[in-house]
Every structure is written in C-alpha cells, then in structure tokens.
C-alpha cells in the first residue's frame, strides 16, 4: 500500500520537475517547482524521515521559494504588469499543478489513515537527529553557521547596492 504511494509521489516529483524546467514563464515554473518539492517531502515522510519532510516544506518550499517569488515579482514591475497578472489568473496555468498537488494531498490523507505510514521499518525521530546533530556533528553545525553568515553578508552587499542605486535614480 505505502509502496504504491511512494511510486505515485515519485512520478509526481519527476513530472513536475520536468514541467518546471521546460516552462517559458518563470512564475509558472516556480509553481511546478513547489509541487516537486512537496512531492519530495512526501517521499521523505514515506521513507521514515518526518523531520526532513517538515524541513523540506518549511525551508525549501517555504523560505527559498518565497525568495524566488520576491525576485520574480521585483523584476516584473512594468507597464504590462496588469495584463500579465490577468493572464496568470486564468485557469489553464494552475490547473495541472493543482491536480498534482491534489494528488499529494490525497496521498497524505491515505497515509494518515494507516498509522505507521512509512515504507521504512523504523522512523528516525527528530530526537535522534538532534542528538546526533549536536553530538558528533557539532563541527558541521559550526561550519554551516559560518556558511550562512557568509551568504548573509554576500546577499546584503549585493542587494544593498541595488537598493541605493534605485533610490538615487528617483
């Protein structure tokens, strides 16, 4: 039963990734990419990694995709913005991602009905992950924190110049 759910989620992931990378419009591609990330989150959950599944949704499909949305919306401000918005609100643009996401929701409901809904024998709980993360892997946490600090400074430097120039132009 759970194996079938796994293969359906895998198909959804492949399909939406392929569709995402062949779209001409960046906003349409983003919707497919979010569906693909949700499908991978379902795969993580079915493989007995609920913590990774939650993080995949919160950070990948949430934070990182919101950054993409911000940038695409910033680049799209122009005269033709309203016509483009109306174009995006038409059904055919979101009906396929909607169907794929609905399929994932159906899988979630099916998985919730069967209590140990994993294809793995045992789930690796968030507690185990945390104990290992701040035990033997504490050096990796420090390195990740330095990497994030470098990314923060780099993004601030690049974005600050953009904002200052925009203000001068006005």
């Amino acid at each position, binding site marked *: 039963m759970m*194996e079938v759910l796994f293969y359906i989620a895998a198909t959804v992931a492949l399909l939406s*990734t392929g569709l*995402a*990378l062949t779209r001409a419009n960046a906003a349409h591609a983003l919707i497919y990419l979010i569906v*693909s990330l949700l499908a991978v989150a379902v795969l993580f959950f079915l493989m007995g*990694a609920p913590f*990774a599944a939650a993080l995949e949704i919160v950070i990948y499909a949430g934070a990182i995709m919101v950054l993409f949305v911000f940038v695409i919306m910033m680049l799209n401000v122009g005269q033709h913005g309203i016509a483009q918005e109306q174009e995006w609100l038409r059904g055919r643009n979101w009906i396929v991602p909607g169907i794929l996401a609905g399929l994932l929701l159906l899988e979630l409901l099916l998985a919730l009905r069967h209590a140990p809904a994993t294809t*793995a024998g045992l789930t*690796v709980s968030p507690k185990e*992950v945390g104990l290992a993360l701040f035990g033997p892997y504490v050096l990796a946490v420090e390195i990740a924190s330095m990497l994030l600090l470098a990314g923060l400074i780099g993004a601030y430097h690049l974005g600050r110049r953009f904002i200052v120039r925009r203000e001068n132009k006005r």
Partner: protein
Amino acid sequence: MGGLQIPMEHVLALAGLLFSCGLMGLMLRRNIIFMLMSLEVMLNASALAFVAAGAKWNQADGQIIFLLILSVAAAEVAVGLGLVLQIQRRFKTLDIDQARRLRG
C-alpha cells in the same frame, strides 16, 4: 524489521533522474533564474539520496547531511538572487550570455 521496504535502487534511480533533470535544465536554459532553479533541483536530488541511505540503515546521519545541504541551498540562493538583481540592473536582461565579459 528495519530498512526500506522499497528497493534502494529505485530511490537512487529517482534521485539520479531528478539530478539529470536539473543538470539538463542547467545546461539548456540561459535564463539565470531557471539556472538557479535547476541548481535547487540538483541539490534536492542529492538530499533525497542521502535521506534514502539514512532510512535504509535507520541512522540519523542521512537527515543531518540533508540539513547541511539545506543550509548550503539557502546560502547559495540568497547570493544567487542578489546576483540576479545586479545582472538585471546592469544588463537589462536575465540572459546569462549577455554577462560574459567578466569585468566590473
């Protein structure tokens, strides 16, 4: 009982297919936003392989590597989108071939 009930090869094949989707996107598209999306897909596929391996042996290590990949993706996308804004401002296009001269 422990380990995955689905064959490990299937999960690895899925991760490989997702990775090659991302690689094809990276090589075929010239729009820098799509190239960043392809990078996200590739990172995500490798994370899938790590989590599958962690699930096979019931260890937390796979999910920890997933966390590290997540932080790498976050840092990469922050800097990458800053570069997208700079390229758009400087060249008035998102075509990466226009930004080929490598000078400030």
